[in-house]
């Protein structure tokens, strides 16, 4: 055993070069500097606003307008100050200032202790773990908000919270889950796994990667702090003109989306460049694992679509703060324009939240069935088909919106067509099971749970694609049921599959299998009890986004609320299992699942630069059952023994 697999999982093996000069602790990159620079930049923003308004004269009375100060000072400048202080810009700033080039000492790479997870770190494995833990924190916060929503809905009348608070609860719940959990959780898992699967030492742009991560806590804290500034209460869709009419706090949503969106775009660019340029020798596109394919297509979706939601939220904020009239009909604005721009992002976003999960499930099902994935090429092509079709269906969210009626049938046809590549994927997974040697370990349970739940969500999606049915159930609990079957039964289940699958690789320890299975079964049952009845009350006539409802739905809602609390409790098992196993689980071997992809060829956790030599890819990633077949070779014979190899 080399030192690389002992206590400090990602500790660099190189002697660390001492930086040329040590700075005072208030000036060195880190939390103290982040703290004062956040405040300093806020004051700077405030100064700019007040100064310019004072210079502007009587047209800008009062000079101290707190709403503008918050937008410029608190939501724009302060985060930049935080990022500068924590050290996300240090290298670029010194480069831009023409300071002498410092030789790269990799001092920002790897983790010696837990403290190294709380600083700007350029190691994709550290960043991956930073992503996953941060997003799980926001998942728990978002889940808590959902339970508050369900507590309010347990009885038909108003119970615990006033209407504005209720609207903010479900809005922030959805926003956190989408922008701060599902999308970045996949980015985090892929951050850890994709470079390893490609046989690359890191992502293409490690500093950009670190910056992408540090934008996330900013966005999340902005959304959570919106409870102190009422106004994020127009639903996560933030439809104009209601969003423009909301109390001032709505700008917290507009800006949080910008920070989270910037993070997504930077990560996606990083993935694209990494996947295109950093594949190991022999890793042709048709030899890439499907997880890599999935993140390739997802990244394309992100870079093309995300600017649209950024624009939609800027427009809403400009309508409020600068009195533009993008969406104000009395000023010749076009209300439906908001929905077209918003959904042009937010429909592809559904696939941004789905395709990486498809990738994870393909890896898991193939490994635990001990069989090659069925129809590998068609699986990859289906991802591309979903990518292309995904951009042509956005208006199916708008069948009752009042858009041009002739748009409805074409959008219905493209929507239903997506069922075909999606169906191919589901059937291919099932065919992979066929005659396999199935091992029902926790990742496999989550993957199969995903397939069945996602089929239910997909089928209700086909029903929603049919325009006349959609007209009846639009904006009802049927939609709430559908979205949760797709995003909770779908995306969340695949995230759990991925976390359990790569937990040994990431932490070097095994999780408790018994607790993981208990977690799965409890979640599966409570999830269905919570969300399946919502189909019924939706069709029967219960609209979404209401705190009070007709007594006829009271019994079902009480049942749903109770189930949702069981669902919430089931995640506590997960948290407990993760914490305890990470601290004191049994050590994990390099390849606990006998997987074939490259991440299993190195130790758990991998050495700080992943590979001590460049892997040679020699075949397809899923050659289970083929005698002597290999996906990649590390240093000939020694690869088979999987011993960590020291750097030369």
């Amino acid at each position, binding site marked *: 055993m080399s030192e690389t697999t002992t206590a400090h999982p990602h500790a660099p093996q190189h002697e660390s070069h001492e930086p040329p000069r040590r700075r005072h602790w208030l000036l060195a990159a880190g939390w103290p500097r982040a703290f004062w620079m956040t405040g300093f930049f806020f004051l700077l923003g405030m100064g700019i606003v007040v100064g310019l308004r004072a210079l502007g004269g009587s047209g800008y009375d009062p000079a101290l307008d707190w709403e503008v100060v918050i937008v410029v000072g608190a939501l724009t400048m302060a985060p930049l100050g935080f990022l500068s202080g924590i050290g996300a810009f240090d290298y670029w700033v010194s480069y831009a200032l023409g300071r002498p080039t410092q030789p790269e000492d990799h001092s920002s790479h790897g983790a010696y202790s837990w403290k190294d997870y709380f600083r700007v770190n350029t190691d994709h494995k550290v960043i991956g773990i930073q992503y996953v833990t941060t997003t799980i924190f926001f998942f728990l916060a978002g889940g808590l908000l959902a339970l508050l929503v369900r507590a309010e809905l347990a009885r038909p*009348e108003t119970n615990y919270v006033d*209407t504005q608070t209720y*609207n903010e609860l479900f809005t922030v719940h959805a926003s956190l889950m989408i922008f701060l959990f599902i999308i970045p959780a996949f980015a985090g898992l892929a951050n850890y796994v994709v470079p390893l699967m490609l046989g690359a030492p890191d992502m293409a742009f490690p500093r950009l990667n670190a910056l992408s991560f540090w934008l996330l806590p900013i966005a999340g804290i902005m959304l959570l702090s919106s409870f102190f500034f009422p106004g994020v209460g127009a*639903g996560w869709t933030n*439809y104009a*003109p*209601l969003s423009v*009419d909301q109390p001032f706090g709505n700008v917290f949503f507009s800006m949080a989306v910008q920070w989270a969106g910037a993070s997504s775009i930077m990560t996606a660019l990083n993935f694209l460049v990494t996947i295109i340029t950093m594949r190991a020798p022999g890793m042709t596109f048709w030899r890439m694992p499907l997880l890599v394919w999935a993140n390739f297509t997802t990244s394309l979706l992100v870079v093309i679509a995300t600017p649209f939601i950024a624009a939609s939220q800027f427009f809403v904020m400009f309508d409020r703060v600068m009195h533009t009239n993008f969406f104000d*009909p009395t000023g010749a604005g076009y*209300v*439906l324009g908001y929905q077209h721009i918003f959904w042009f992002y937010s429909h592809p976003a559904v696939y941004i939240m789905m395709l990486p999960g498809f990738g994870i499930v393909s890896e898991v099902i193939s490994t635990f*069935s*001990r*069989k*090659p994935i*069925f129809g590998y090429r*068609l699986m990859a092509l289906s991802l591309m088909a979903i990518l292309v079709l995904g951009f042509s269906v956005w208006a199916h969210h708008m069948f*009752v919106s*009042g858009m041009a009626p002739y748009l*409805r*049938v074409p959008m*219905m046809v493209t929507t*239903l067509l997506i*069922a*075909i590549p999606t*169906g*191919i994927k*589901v059937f291919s997974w*099932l*065919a992979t*099971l*066929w005659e*396999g*040697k*199935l*091992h029902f370990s926790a990742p496999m349970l989550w993957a*199969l749970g995903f*397939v*069945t739940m996602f089929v239910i969500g997909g*089928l209700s999606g*086909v*029903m929603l694609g*049919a*325009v*006349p*049915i959609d*007209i*009846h159930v*639009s*904006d009802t609990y049927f939609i709430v049921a559908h979205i949760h079957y797709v995003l909770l039964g779908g995306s969340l289940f695949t995230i759990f599959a991925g976390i359990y699958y790569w937990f040994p690789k990431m932490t070097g320890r095994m999780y408790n299998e018994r607790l993981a299975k208990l977690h799965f079964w409890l979640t599966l049952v409570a999830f269905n009890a919570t969300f399946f009845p919502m189909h*019924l009350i939706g*069709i*029967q*006539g219960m*609209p*979404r*986004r209401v705190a*009070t*409802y007709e007594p006829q739905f009271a019994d079902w809602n009480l049942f749903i609320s109770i189930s949702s609390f069981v669902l919430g409790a089931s995640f506590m098992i997960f948290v407990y299992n993760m914490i305890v196993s990470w601290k004191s689980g049994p050590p994990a071997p390099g390849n606990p699942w006998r997987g074939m992809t490259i991440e299993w060829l190195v130790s758990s956790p991998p050495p700080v630069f992943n590979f001590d030599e460049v892997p040679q890819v020699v075949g397809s990633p899923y050659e*289970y059952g083929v005698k002597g077949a290999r996906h990649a070779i590390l240093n000939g014979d020694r690869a088979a023994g999987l011993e960590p190899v020291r750097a030369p």
Partner: protein
Amino acid sequence: MRRGAIVALIVIALIVAAITTGIAYFVDWLPEQASEERQGIDLLFWVTVAICIFVFAVVAAVSIYAGVTFRVRPDDESDGPPIHGHTGIEIVWTAVPTILVTVIAVLSAVVLAQNDDPKGTPLRVDVLAQQYAWQFTYPEQGGIKATNLYLPIDRSTKLILNARDVLHSFWVPEFGQKQDAVPGIVTTLVITPTKTGEYRLICTELCGLGHALMRTRAIVLSQADFAAWTQKQAQGGGQAGGGGGEVDAKGIFTANCAACHTLTKAGTSGTVGPNLDGLSLGPADVEEQIRKGGGGMPPFEGQLSDAEIKALVQYLTGSNG
């Protein structure tokens, strides 16, 4: 594949299909059907449900059979057969879903075209949605206004929808039809009631604090009753406009103010705006507030006639001002 496997798959699929069909059949899924449009929607709904049951049964059968049959002990380290694909079967599972979604698409397009198309000469009703009330105007009946939607049975009604402030959405579950009311543009919706009775009319697009309470009733009358109603309203409305007739102040209050305000004597419990039980403003201030709005409350001038506003002020303050 062994013959036994096929038989087992079919048996499991039939059991799953029977259970899901039972859930579809014995649970009362759809609300009462009260319009011609709902007939098309319901037909499409059941056809799609049948297709969904078929697909789900196939998926469940394969998963269950595979899970039971191909499961191995944890210490079994053997691999499955290296099957990489099968062109024939891949063509089948591309083609069959294509056919199924084509059926759904064609049927949907037909139902949609029918539901968009009024039968005969439709009755026109102008719908104005605002935070948090509905107002219905009958331009062909002398412009009478109502806060409940009165419709004649067996005649198509074309709703012309508009919104004053933010997005709202018109829905009567029993009619099945839904349409957003959008500020700045006009949208339309066709409804052909087939059953007399009173139905819930609800706003389904989040429109602010009073969204959950932005509700009224759709009342379907026989053609004769509808004619009588319009006649009575035309006369009553004329009188009210002239300033002398009986105006139902409590009715105006429950239709326009209930979503936001609590008032015990009207039996309302809205909590968006101030509780009006302890109202301390004088009649002039109350009238000003109703006419001009403010503090989050929309203006009602033009929504309510002068007589209605006067009646409301008196109802709220017990004084004529």
